[in-house]
C-alpha cells in the first residue's frame, strides 16, 4: 500500500509522451524512457506536441521497444539486471519478430537494442546450411545454376568445411 501511495505523485510529476503506432494505438511513455531513442529525442526537442505518430511501427513491435526503453530508463535497476533483461528480451523470439524489432530500433535509433537484436539474428544464422537459411528466411535464389557454381568455385574457401553449406 505504501508503495502505491508513493508511486502516485511520483508518476504524476514525471513528464510523459504519447506514442501512436501505425495501428492507431497509443502508448503512454515517460519522457526519460522516450529520450533513450535518439530519434524520439530529436522529435521532442523540436516540437512541443506530446504526441508522436510512428507510421511504420506496428503495435506489437512498438510495445516491445517501449518495454525495453522503460526498463532501461528505470534507475532502480542495476546494470547487471538490465544486461540479463537484454538477454532475456531477445531469447526465444522468432526471426520474424526480430526483423520487425531491428527495423524499428533502426528507425528509432535505439543503438544498444539494435546491437542486441542484430547479434541475436547473426547467432541464428551461424552454422546454418545455405538451404536452411534460404528456407527459413524466405530468400529466393535468383542465381542460375551456372552462376551459383561459379561463385562456389571463386570463393571455395568460404564453404570448405560445410558451414553454411548445402545439405
Amino acid at each position, binding site marked *: 500500500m505504501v508503495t502505491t501511495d508513493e508511486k502516485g505523485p511520483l508518476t504524476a510529476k514525471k513528464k510523459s509522451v504519447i506514442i501512436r503506432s501505425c495501428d492507431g494505438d497509443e502508448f503512454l511513455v515517460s519522457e526519460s524512457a522516450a529520450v533513450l531513442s535518439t530519434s524520439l529525442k530529436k522529435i521532442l526537442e523540436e516540437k512541443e506536441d506530446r504526441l508522436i505518430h510512428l507510421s511504420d511501427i506496428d503495435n506489437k513491435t512498438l510495445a516491445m521497444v517501449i518495454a525495453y526503453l522503460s526498463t532501461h530508463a528505470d534507475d532502480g535497476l542495476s546494470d547487471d539486471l538490465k544486461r540479463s533483461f537484454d538477454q532475456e528480451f531477445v531469447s526465444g523470439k522468432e526471426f520474424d519478430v526480430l526483423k520487425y524489432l*531491428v527495423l524499428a530500433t*533502426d528507425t528509432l535509433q535505439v543503438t544498444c537494442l539494435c546491437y542486441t537484436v542484430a547479434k541475436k539474428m*547473426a547467432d541464428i*544464422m*551461424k552454422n546454418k546450411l545455405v538451404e536452411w537459411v534460404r528456407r527459413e528466411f524466405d530468400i529466393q535464389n*535468383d542465381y542460375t545454376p551456372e552462376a*551459383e557454381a561459379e561463385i562456389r568455385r571463386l570463393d571455395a574457401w568460404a564453404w*570448405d568445411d560445410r558451414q553454411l553449406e548445402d545439405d
Partner: protein
Amino acid sequence: MVLGDDTGTTLLCRTLWFIGDIGVLERESRGLLEGLTWIKSLGFSNVVFEVDAKGVVDVLQRREEIWTKVGRIIRASKAILDSKPCFRVQFVSRQANVVVHVFARASTSYASPTIWVEPLDFVWYSVLRRTQKPFFGFIMEKTKQYCRKESIDRLSALPDDILCHILSFLPTKLSVATSILSRRWRFLWAHVPNLDFDSENHGRESKIDERSFFDIIYRVMSLYKVENMDTFSLCFIRMSQSQLETCIDAAVIRNVKNISLIAPNNFPSVSLPCCILTCKTLVDLTLYNIWDMPMSGDISLPALKRLCLDSVFYDTAGSLPHLLSGCPVLDELIVERTDADTGCFYISSPTLKRLMFSSYFDNTDEFEREAYTVEIDTPALSYLHVYSRTRYEYVSVGSLTSLIEADVDLEYVSPMETDDLLFRSTLEFVGRLCNVKCLKLSIGWMEVPDSEFSALNVKFHNLTKLEIAPDWRFISNFLENADNLEVLMIRTADEYLKYWIEPKQVPTCLLLHLGTVRIDQFGCTEPEFNMVRYILRNAKVLKRMEIYTESHGIDLKEKFVALKIISLFQRGSEACELAFH
C-alpha cells in the same frame, strides 16, 4: 467475417460486397453491423467481435451520438449489442486480423459473396463452398500468392545497412558465404565494417598452409568496399612477417578503429607490424603473443582508448613506457605479463582510468630483484586489478587519489622463506589503496610478522565494501581503519592464516555502519568463533550475518553444535539476523 471458437479454430467465414466509394469509418462500422446481424440471426451467444478499426470501437464505447449516416449504422449496432448482453466488441491489431484480409481479397475473385464452412486452416485453405459453384484451383492459387507475398524474402526486405550490421557479427568466412543466398547478397559482405579472420575457421591446420590463408585475406581485401573500417581481427597459425604487414597495412589504410591480432603460441613468432603504431584512427588494440615491442621509433596513437597486451614480448624495459608515451588519451590497459626477462615493469599514464595487470611466470632463478618489480604511476586511475601467480613480485604504486575500486590478488606460489622486502612492499602497496570504496583483497602465502601490520596504519575513509582473504589479520586492521565500512565479506583462508586479533578498542565502523557480514567456508575453529563472537557483540547496527560452512569436512552434528554456540552469542544489534548454511 471470420467466425472462430475459443481455441482459435476457424468455424465459418463469410464475405459480403458493398459497391461504391465509402469512407473508412462507414465501411468498418457497416462491416461490424453486418457481422452483428449475421451472428444474431445464427442464434449464437457469448461472442466477442474483434474489429481492427480503432475508430469504430472508440465511437461504440464512448456512446457518443453521431448524426450522420455512420451514426445511424453505429446506433443500429448498439441496438443489437444492447439486446444481446453477451456480445462484446473489442479492438484487435491489423496484424492479428490478417485472416480476414486474406478473405476479403480472395472474395473479389468470386462471382458473388460467399460463405465458407470449416475446416479452414489459417494459411492453406481446403475451402468448401456451400452456396456457389466453386472456383477451387483459382482461389487456392490466389490465396497462396497472397500469403507468399506477405512472407517472401523476409530477411531480404531489410535495408542493406541493417543486413550489414547483422553480418558484422559473423566471422568473415560466414559473411562471404552468404553471397550464395541470392544476387542481392552477392557482395553485401564487402560492405560489412568488420573483418574477422581466424585460421581455425579455415579447415584443419594440416589443410591450410600460410600461402592459402594469406590468399584468402588478399582476395577479400581486394573486393572489400568499406572505407572506414570498424574492426579487423586476425587469428593465425602460420603467417610470414611480410604477409602480416600487408594485411595490417590494408586495415590501417581503411581507417580501422579496432585491431585484434592473435599469434600462435608456437614458433615462429612474429614482430609487431610497425604501421599499427602510427594508426591515427585506432581506438582499441589487442595483441596476443606478439614479439619485439620496440623501445624506440615513432609511436602515435592519438585516439587509442583501450590497449590489451597479452603475453607480448618487449625488447627492453623501456618498450612499454615508450608505447604508453604515444597514447595520449588511453583509458583502459590490460597487461598480462608472462616473462620477466626485460626487467622492471613500468606502467605510467596520466589518463589511464582502468588497469588490469596480471603476471604468470615462474621466477625460480635467482635474478636480481629489480626484474620482478612492477611500478605503477597512474594518478587518474579509478579501477585497479592486480593479479599475481608468481613466486614473488614487488608491486609499487604512485598516488591513487581517484581510485574507487580495487581487486588485489597476490597469491605468491611458495615464496622464499622470509622475504622482508616482499611483505613490506606488499603492505605499502595496500596502504596506497586508501581512497577506494570497494576493495577485494586476497594476499596469501606470506608470513608477515604481526609487528609489521602497524605499517598499515592508514585510514580507509571511503571504504564501504570489503572482501577479504586469506590472511585474517588484515580484518582487524581494516575494521580499525575503515570507519565507514558497511559490508564485510570474508572468504576462505588456510588454517594457519585464520588468526583473529581483537582490535584494542571497538572500531567506529562496528558502532555506526557495518550492516552486513558474510563468512564463507567457516571451519568451526576457535579463532573463527572468537571473531564471530566479537563482531556480533560489538556491531551495533548489524542487520545480517551470513555464515557458510565448508562443504567438506564438517558434518551435520558439528554444524548443529556450531549454530547453537553462535546463536547464544550476545548481540549488540537487536535487529541482527543470523543465517547459517
